[in-house]
């Protein structure tokens, strides 16, 4: 297996960030938190307040420029009750470019996205404390 230099990782991440922010439906990348297996029970949809969503990649890592707000539903709160288990990262047109059907876990679980509580109740709000993409 070939190896990527840090410069190459940064270039790949910057290209991915540009691709994620492309589209007219949302205008920029968004992060959806759903029930197991991307079922229809959407809980949260995080959208950055402005584009570009991500900072320029550095050291093979890329973090969001401004932490997205939860904008699911009219009240910006969860629109379903259940257990959060999967996530999608969508481009500006709402097409999923990155996904993990089992990527949500409790704090300390090592899951891609950790939550202090995965049991979500309808109407409950959420804060995205941190988010980054990186190439190991």
């Amino acid at each position: 297996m070939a190896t990527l230099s840090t410069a190459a990782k940064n270039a790949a991440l910057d290209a991915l960030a540009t691709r994620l922010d492309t589209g007219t439906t949302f205008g920029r990348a968004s992060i959806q938190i759903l029930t197991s297996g991307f079922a229809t029970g959407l809980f949260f949809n995080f959208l950055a307040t402005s584009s570009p969503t991500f900072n320029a990649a550095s050291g093979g890592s890329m973090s969001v420029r401004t932490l997205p707000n939860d904008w699911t539903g009219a009240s910006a709160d969860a629109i379903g009750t259940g257990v959060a288990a999967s996530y999608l990262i969508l481009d500006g047109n709402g097409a999923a470019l990155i996904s993990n059907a089992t990527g949500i876990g409790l704090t300390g679980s090592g899951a891609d996205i950790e939550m202090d509580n995965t049991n979500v109740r309808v109407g409950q709000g959420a804060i995205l404390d941190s988010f980054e993409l990186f190439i190991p």
Partner: protein
Amino acid sequence: MIRIPLPIRVVTKGRITLGPPPAQASQPEPPEEEPAPDTQRAIPPPLPPEAQPGNGVWQR
């Protein structure tokens, strides 16, 4: 053709804190109690003067 596999694997790392659970829907307040009906007999309004006893108008 030579194909070289590149180790491009994007890893996501995020953290989400849930807000407080939504408040329970408030119970509807019980309707205010209706005042107890006045059990005393209502006092009729005074009669007009011509209707007072002794003031009647007689006609042939």
